[in-house]
């Protein structure tokens, strides 16, 4: 409260109600945004920046008899960066995340298009509800459900055998892993794209059609460019979620091979090596930051172009 009072110029007495309002109003253009922003900034500092700084600091610490001790040594960095399991996990995790991002977009774009342009209002609302519900349900539970569906004696294999064919090794491996990851990424990606599609001015579509564009041309030249940013956002979100995921690699493939997040847990589990786990964490964060910056850059690039035309 005192902050607010201090930020306002002293009100000259005797102020009418209207005068008071005006005084507050004239003081606000500069101060109000700052004040509204402060809690957000404080939140960011306490819950993001500070832990991040600590995470980086810890990478230089040492573990002696299961206890963290402050130190300044690059041992953890060299140990992790030159370790073969880390390099393999890094390559594999990147591969998995890129594949998941591509699959997510391939499925999400037509799905979002159908929901936005092909469904009646009622069905669209229903579809969006069905997309939102999984976001609030337990991801772990959904992965367990997939285990029941895909396991050697699971639902799919039982059906295959009833048809007189041999069962398939569905669980374990890239297929199962991608199924698990898409469970996580698809609802979010489709929601982002549906929102983007519904933000498009329908007059543009009508205009294009009136000028003789076929549907495919409308999609390619009107719709897709309009949701370019959202596509990058959906893609980078899918990358972010799949790159850092722990549950799917653990339960759908039995950690075979391990991803970076599994490597983090393994590193802590054996010998309480928090500093080395932090190294992996920092590297993962750096990669994600790069991917976001790249997506941002590509998205912006187009805007300038469009504005320049």
């Amino acid at each position, binding site marked *: 409260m005192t902050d607010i009072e201090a930020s306002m110029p002293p009100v000259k007495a005797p102020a009418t109600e209207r005068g008071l309002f005006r005084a507050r109003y004239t003081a606000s253009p500069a101060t109000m945004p700052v004040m509204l922003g402060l809690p957000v900034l404080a939140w960011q500092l306490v819950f993001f920046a500070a832990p991040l700084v600590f995470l980086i600091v810890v990478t230089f610490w040492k573990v002696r*008899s*299961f*206890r963290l001790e402050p130190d300044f040594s690059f041992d953890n960095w060299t140990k992790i960066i030159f*370790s*073969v*399991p880390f390099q*393999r*996990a890094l390559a594999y995790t990147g591969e998995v995340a890129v594949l998941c991002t591509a699959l997510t977009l391939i499925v999400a774009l037509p799905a979002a298009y159908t929901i936005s342009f092909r469904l009646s209002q009622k069905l669209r609302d229903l579809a969006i509800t069905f997309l939102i519900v999984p976001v609030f349900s337990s991801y772990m539970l959904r992965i*367990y459900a997939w*285990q*029941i569906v895909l*396991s*050697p*004696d*699971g639902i799919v294999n039982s059906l295959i055998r009833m048809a007189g064919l041999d069962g398939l*090794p569905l*669980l*374990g491996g890239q297929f199962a892993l991608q199924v698990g990851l898409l469970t996580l990424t698809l609802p979010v990606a489709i929601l982002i794209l549906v929102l983007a599609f519904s933000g498009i001015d329908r007059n543009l579509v009508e205009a294009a059609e009136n000028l003789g564009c076929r549907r495919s041309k409308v999609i390619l030249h009107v719709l897709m460019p309009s949701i370019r940013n959202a596509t990058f956002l959906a893609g980078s979100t899918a990358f972010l979620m799949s790159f850092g995921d722990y549950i799917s690699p*653990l*339960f759908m*493939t*039995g*950690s*075979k*091979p*391990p991803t970076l997040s599994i*490597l983090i*847990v*393994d590193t802590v*589990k*054996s*010998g*309480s090596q928090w500093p080395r786990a932090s190294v992996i964490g920092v590297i993962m964060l750096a990669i994600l930051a790069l991917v976001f910056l790249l997506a941002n850059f590509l998205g912006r690039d187009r805007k300038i172009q469009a504005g320049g035309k």
Partner: protein
Amino acid sequence: MRIPNFMSGDISRRGFLKAGAAGAALAASSQWSSAYADDPNVLNYLSWPGNADPYLIAEFEKANNVKVKIKEYVGGDQMLAVINQSPPGSFDVVLADAEYMHLLHASDFIEPLDPDDYPLKDFWPEFQKFPLHWFDGQLYGVMTDFGYLGLSYNTDVFKPEEVKSYAAMWSEKAKGKVGFFDWYLPSMGSISLSNGNLPPFDLSEDKFEAVKEKLFTLKPQASGFYTIADIFSSLTNGQAQLVPGIGEWITLGLRLNGVPVDTIIPDEGGLQWTESLSIVKGTPKKDLARKFIQYTTSPEGQVKMATKVDNKKSIPSIAGWKLLNETMPKDAEILRLQLDKPNVMDEYKAKKIQFRQLPSEQSIEDWNDVWSEFKSL
């Protein structure tokens, strides 16, 4: 319960039997907090998850008018980390696996015990002076329970005679079906046994290298690396049909639920895990701690230990065996704790059992690195 995975507690309880929501709610109320360090009516207990189950401790609490507050850990490393980071007096009693006892002793975390305070004379002679619990002729931990680790297999797919040797893991039939419990110690211990190393954790560099190479040849056979949560489901859904380095603590419960699995101690030998209770140095409640150990090793406490619903174990006390056979003969039969029939001591007496120990010639880190590399192959 021998797994270094932070998820194991809740999931094993949930995925496994009927301990259920009520149990979880009770567990939540019996959680340890440093605030209880000086409370004379609280016993602070550092232990594997599930050991403050009312089934185990309610009687002790009533008889002594105290509450047992548990700080749960998963895996010896975590136990050492917790005890290292807590001020003296935070814990009164610690339950530890035998292979970590020398580390607890070396760091001076546990008190020497007076053997006369505890019913060691009731134990099987083999366990009265269990080597991993004694240092310089002094007792530091009292054994509470144990079990064996061998080769667990799907009985629909493998016949007992096919899994008499760890070599079964390299068979054509086992391709892509060998599951691993994701802990280097028992898993690599089994490979070491299959290489004929006795004891399996005391390896020269050459032998260690040979174990590493042999382990790496198993990669095409592997189906995955499982934590406690998914080792149960993988054995149940057929994802893993052969698992080295686990034992009846997993397969017995599954079998009772109708899953076709069993554990065999192969000809090359099996491993033994052992849990014991020790008094933590710096506790102001030594008497209470002693009473707790006495209670747990009494015939009544031992019977409860053996028959706890989510984790059935073998017990070292013959008096406990007798009471179990009198009061719960059916369980005694299932647990192979019958005095006049073939029982769990047979394998021990046949010298097929090696202690699970930490590597003596290499560092834990060396073994871990090999394990990590194997996983990432």
